[in-house]
């Protein structure tokens, strides 16, 4: 064996191991973060039951005795996310249909790039636009005491979910095989009838996954939401009330709390809840994505 080939082999070996290490490091970090989250957070449940924590209506972390009930924040996050889904899903689906089925090739590229760029805008910038445009608009439009409402958060989040939702849904619709379109048109269906009777049904699992991944993407979103939702820890009754989300609570209070205190642990416990929700959403979305690959083989 020549020196050259031997050197190449060693080089290959080193590269292979380096890549392996990098991969392992990623897994390791995830595990470490998870362990850390559990270690800091689970302590909370030694002095408050999981039920009281999740369903408690009062969040008074620094009064004595302190109260750690996060129901209002779960509702806050839920309402903002639900609002974002209600606003974002029809719009996102319509864009996905337009891009995959209607737009001419040139425009298609422009639109796809545009939507990807939307993902590149830092969330604090979106929050800033929210404060200066959306919040005042809502205050005037609905004649509210303040425009800082769940709706404002939902509007921003629907924008932020858009890139994920649109690109995955577009993918799902585009990968419906062409032969179905030919079959439908040959039966006298119009293009639109093909889209909603065949393409959308064939792509349904992928579309569900797109929506869920979009939601999963924004439920953990913090900055933009914190800037526009008013952050009142009350159980909201409508989209037009201020809310406080789980993420905003952690972000706002983590800096002020004493490391190792019960309050500190409770914030980590919120983190665990958030993690569990996000994990569940991603898991379900993933199984839908898998199903869509199977049906569209």
């Amino acid at each position, binding site marked *: 064996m020549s020196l050259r080939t031997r050197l190449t082999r060693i080089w290959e070996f080193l590269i292979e191991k380096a890549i392996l290490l990098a991969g392992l490091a990623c897994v390791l970090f995830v595990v470490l973060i998870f362990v850390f989250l559990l270690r800091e957070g689970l302590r909370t449940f030694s002095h408050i039951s999981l039920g009281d924590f999740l369903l408690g209506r009062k969040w008074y972390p620094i009064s004595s005795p302190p109260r750690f009930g996060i129901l209002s924040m779960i509702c806050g996050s839920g309402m903002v996310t639900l609002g974002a889904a209600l606003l974002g899903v029809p719009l996102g689906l319509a864009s996905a249909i337009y891009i995959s089925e209607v737009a001419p090739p040139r425009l298609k590229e422009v639109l796809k790039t545009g939507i990807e760029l939307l993902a590149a805008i830092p969330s604090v910038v979106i929050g800033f636009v929210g404060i200066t445009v959306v919040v005042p608009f809502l205050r005037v439009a609905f004649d509210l005491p303040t425009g800082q409402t769940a709706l404002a958060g939902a509007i921003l989040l629907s924008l932020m979910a858009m890139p994920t939702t649109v690109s995955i849904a577009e993918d799902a619709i585009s990968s419906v*095989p062409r*032969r*179905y*379109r*030919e*079959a*439908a*048109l*040959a*039966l*006298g*269906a*119009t293009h639109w*009838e093909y889209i909603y*009777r*065949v393409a959308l*049904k*064939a792509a349904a699992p992928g579309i569900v996954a797109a929506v869920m991944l979009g939601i999963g993407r924004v439920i953990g979103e913090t900055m933009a939401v914190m800037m526009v939702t008013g952050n009142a820890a009350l159980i909201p009754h409508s989209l037009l009330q201020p809310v406080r989300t789980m993420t905003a609570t952690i972000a706002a209070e983590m800096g002020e709390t004493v490391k190792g205190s019960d309050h500190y642990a409770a914030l980590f416990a919120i983190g665990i809840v958030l993690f569990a929700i996000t994990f569940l959403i991603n898991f379900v979305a993933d199984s839908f994505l898998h199903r869509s690959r199977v*049906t*569209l083989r």
Partner: protein
Amino acid sequence: MSDPAVSTIPPGDLPIPSDQPAVEVDQLNFFYGDFQALKDISLSVEPRRITALIGPSGCGKSTLLRSLNRMNDLIPGVRVEGTVKVLGSDIYAPEADLVALRTKVGMVFQRPNPFPLSVYENVAFAARVHKTARGAAMDELVERCLASVFLWDDLKRNLRKSALDLSLEQQQRLCIARLLAVVPDLLLMDEPCSTLDPAATQGLEDLMGELAKQYTIVIVTHNMQQAARVSQDCGFMLLGELVEFDKTENIFENPQDPRTDDYIRGRYG
């Protein structure tokens, strides 16, 4: 398969008058961009007969078939010269109605392409699109169409099953059933048996024979034996030209053009 399909084929379509050709193609030229795929084709297809188009791969059989229901319109950059009349109306006239055309002319593709929906929804598709049946009438339509292709007995308990789980032959039969629900007059079939095994091919050929009692069928095949078995009229194509068009027995036993003769003999060895 004992009970003939005649009684179960959807009624309602007025039979084409026997003196009028189902399809008349006159000096048809067809271009994919600069490439001329059909050269000066003229032929007429008689009603309630099976007309086969044969010829080597790439000679333009599919292109000719697809210009009869304007499926080529989906391809960018195509150009058509000449006239094609289906049931007496010029389908390339500016005022021609594409949807109406495709309810008169159904197409079966080379590869079975049932929708990724249930068996029932596949057959119901056309009636839902054209709003021609619903409720009990729809159930009846689905049964009739499936019976016409001899699938009803096999599938009546599995109507909710995904069409993609059927065998290839069943899928192709389902595609034909889906077509019959449109109540077309003319059925275009583009190598409908090319993905099927010999037994399934035999079954489908029998089905064509039954359907030809009521429908006009144009079938493209590169299998000459099949053309000889199923068709009454036959056209031989070569490099975009229709070399010869005649009764099937004349094409196979007494071809007028030496190129037809070469092709037929070449294949029989």
